[in-house]
């Protein structure tokens, strides 16, 4: 029983160049299985991926996402810099509001997906993917000239609290009324005595928050959340369940579903591209695609059997290749094998019968509506 064919390999645990979050010791103490992920040594699971996934859907789970990067930008030139760098319309952001957005290359390929926070009238924060921090930092400082940028990634811890009981749990520890924080909004408050930003955002499809805190205070915040949530069934959640939860919601994962070779429209992210706001990097290329319609589309697949369609597997239509799987797993809440794949636009309509080549054999699959599991975010 060997041949792990996986990016979660446990083989390189001795790689000392991996970075650690402020919660590394807490994970090891809790018996988490640590794996390399995007240059970080992260917990892939504690009790088990399926059990953790179910805990988030049924109660509440806490995720260490401190590996993600945070950049602050401020000053008079900040709005213009962000308008040039990102695809969404920063002018539409109120103070205390959060926006999902993209950084694109001039050819429309995606540098990263990110959230943009407007913290004050001329102060913003960008949260970027862990594996892209260095690349993004070079990109924003090179192309966002004029504004004052600060990379606060190392100084910032980030804990996601997700699930139907997240609001009650965070509410007990916060000195603000968290029921008043709307979806994709953020409030400054103290949580378990720690100065924090409470953001009603997440990557699971459940209601919940992402809590930013100073790195040094993050271990205290983490243990306070797990302690206060014990009666609610709060448990720590690893990257494994984070991946199955987001997959069921069809949320894109950079490096899997989107990257420098994919454009926002084929990825189904046209809703965060706002050409009417004026010029931005990648606008012309993306608008050209909009004119013709994308040649391929990212779609949801459901396998007929329980075989797993994994990243890189070929998607077939009547024995001819039509695309490629970008993410795939067993979805614990849908109890089915599901996947995301790019396929030729002609084969993208819901109900289209396709096949996925798995170990030389073509297994039947069908294009289905996404999300695979209904979203319960608090809109």
């Amino acid at each position, binding site marked *: 029983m060997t041949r792990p064919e996986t990016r979660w390999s446990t083989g390189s645990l001795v790689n000392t160049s991996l970075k650690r979050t402020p919660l590394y010791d807490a994970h090891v103490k809790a018996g988490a299985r640590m794996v390399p992920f995007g240059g970080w040594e992260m917990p892939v699971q504690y009790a088990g*991926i399926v059990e953790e996934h179910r805990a988030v859907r049924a109660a509440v789970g806490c995720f260490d996402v401190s590996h993600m990067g945070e950049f602050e930008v401020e000053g008079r030139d900040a709005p213009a810099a962000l308008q040039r760098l990102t695809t969404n319309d920063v002018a539409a952001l109120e103070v205390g509001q959060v926006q999902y957005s993209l950084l694109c290359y001039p050819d429309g390929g995606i540098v990263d997906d990110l959230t943009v926070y407007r913290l004050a009238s001329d102060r913003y924060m960008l949260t970027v993917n862990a594996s892209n921090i260095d690349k993004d930092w070079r990109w924003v400082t090179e192309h966002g000239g004029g504004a004052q940028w600060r990379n606060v990634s190392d100084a910032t811890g980030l804990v996601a609290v997700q699930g139907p009981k997240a609001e009650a749990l965070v509410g007990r520890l916060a000195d603000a009324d968290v029921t008043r924080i709307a979806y994709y909004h953020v409030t400054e408050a103290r949580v378990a005595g720690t100065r924090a930003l409470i953001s009603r955002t997440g990557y699971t499809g459940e209601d919940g928050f992402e809590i930013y805190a100073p790195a040094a205070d993050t271990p205290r915040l983490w243990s306070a959340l797990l302690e206060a949530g014990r009666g609610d069934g709060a448990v720590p959640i690893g990257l494994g369940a984070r991946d199955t939860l987001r997959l069921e919601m069809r949320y894109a994962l950079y490096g899997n579903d989107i990257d420098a070779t994919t454009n926002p429209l084929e990825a189904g992210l046209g809703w965060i591209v706002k050409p009417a706001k004026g010029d931005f990097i990648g606008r012309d290329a993306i608008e050209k695609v909009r004119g013709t319609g994308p040649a391929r589309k990212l779609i949801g697949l459901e396998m007929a059997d329980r075989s797993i369609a994994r990243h890189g597997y070929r998607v077939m239509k009547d024995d001819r290749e039509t695309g490629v799987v970008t993410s795939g797993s067993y979805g614990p809440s849908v109890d089915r094998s599901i996947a995301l794949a790019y396929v030729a636009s002609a084969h993208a309509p819901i109900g289209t019968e396709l096949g996925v080549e798995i170990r030389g054999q073509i297994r039947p699959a069908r294009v289905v509506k996404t999300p695979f599991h209904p979203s319960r975010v608090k809109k």
Partner: protein
Amino acid sequence: MANVPGDLKYTREHEWAKREGDRVRVGITHFAQEQLGDVVFVELPKVGAKVTAHQAFGVVESVKAVSDLFAPISGEVLEINAELPQKPETVNKDPYGKGWMIVVKPSNAGELDQLLTSQQYEEFVAQGAH
């Protein structure tokens, strides 16, 4: 950790083999299922297929990994565990019992003697092999 029954033989790829008269039952070890995590898919050969010692006879998938199943001995597949494709989690719950994978009619029963004893397998695992 030691969940290594004394009456079974083992491979270095973490399969177990159990002699049942002139047949041999095959599965994966407790250590293997623990390393894999939640098993979500099992692909087994057809009854009547030939398997060869140290070669892949099937596949087991967890949420995060695909792994080959290696035959402890050569022979013909007499039975497969037809429940596993629908209930792959059985491999995690009961790896030495209801989570068995195939029953083989050995073509050379002597191959069984070349496998690891429970004690040897325990030492092998303790040395951090995977």
